[in-house]
């Protein structure tokens, strides 16, 4: 009997994460990473942002963004190490680091979003 591979599932997460990262991340990092700190536009107030992240839809949005983006990273980074650096002999360590990191990050995101007062 063949052992069923979980590669298609991981690839699906990678692909969904790729779409999410491509569509949402440039504007996020443009605003929060450059435009607000450099004062190009007036940063939203603390109260406005807190009200936003309190909303259940925003929490779901942020959870999906963080989680899928991390699985996207895990899959891509894993193959970058395989092909780029050719360290196939460290296979298990790389897999644990990449997917373990994504799972851990997903758990942290869930905890942080859950805990918002």
């Amino acid at each position: 009997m063949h052992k069923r591979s979980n590669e298609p599932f991981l690839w699906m997460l990678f692909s969904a994460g790729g779409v999410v990262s491509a569509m949402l991340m440039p504007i996020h990092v443009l605003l929060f990473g450059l435009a607000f700190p450099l004062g190009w536009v007036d940063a939203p107030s603390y109260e406005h942002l807190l009200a936003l992240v309190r909303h259940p839809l925003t929490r779901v949005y942020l959870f999906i963004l963080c989680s899928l983006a991390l699985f996207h990273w895990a899959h891509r980074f894993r193959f970058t190490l395989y092909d780029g650096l050719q360290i196939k002999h460290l296979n298990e360590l790389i897999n644990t680091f990449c997917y373990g990191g994504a799972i851990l990050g997903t758990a942290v995101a869930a905890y942080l979003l859950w805990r918002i007062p």
Partner: protein
Amino acid sequence: MNNPTEYLPRSYHTRVSTYWWLARWAYVKFILREASSVFVAWIVVVTLLQIRALTRGPADYAELQNSLRSPLLLTLNAVSLAFVIFHAVTWFNLAPKAMVIRLRGKRLSSLAIAAPNYVAWVVISAAIAWILLRG
């Protein structure tokens, strides 16, 4: 290993240089595209730090905004922006190659598949900016 030829027939591989991807621009682009994932992960980390600071209160939030003004983090975020834009463009341009759509027996052109992605990108980015900036 006393006899170096002992295992040759089965395990003969020419060793590829670790820097094989520097040989051609197309390979460099491939590695840069793959490297973009590291910046995707970095943006997630910053987003989670922002959420944590928001939860902790105005003082913590202001402190994080202050550290985001440091030259190191500004540079890192500028590089991250360049990489995620590169990721987005390569991702959208790959879409026509990943999915072949046929309409009335004719293959839909690459542009017809890639263009809606770009339109969605602009609309979604504008919507996020609007939601954030209206307060």
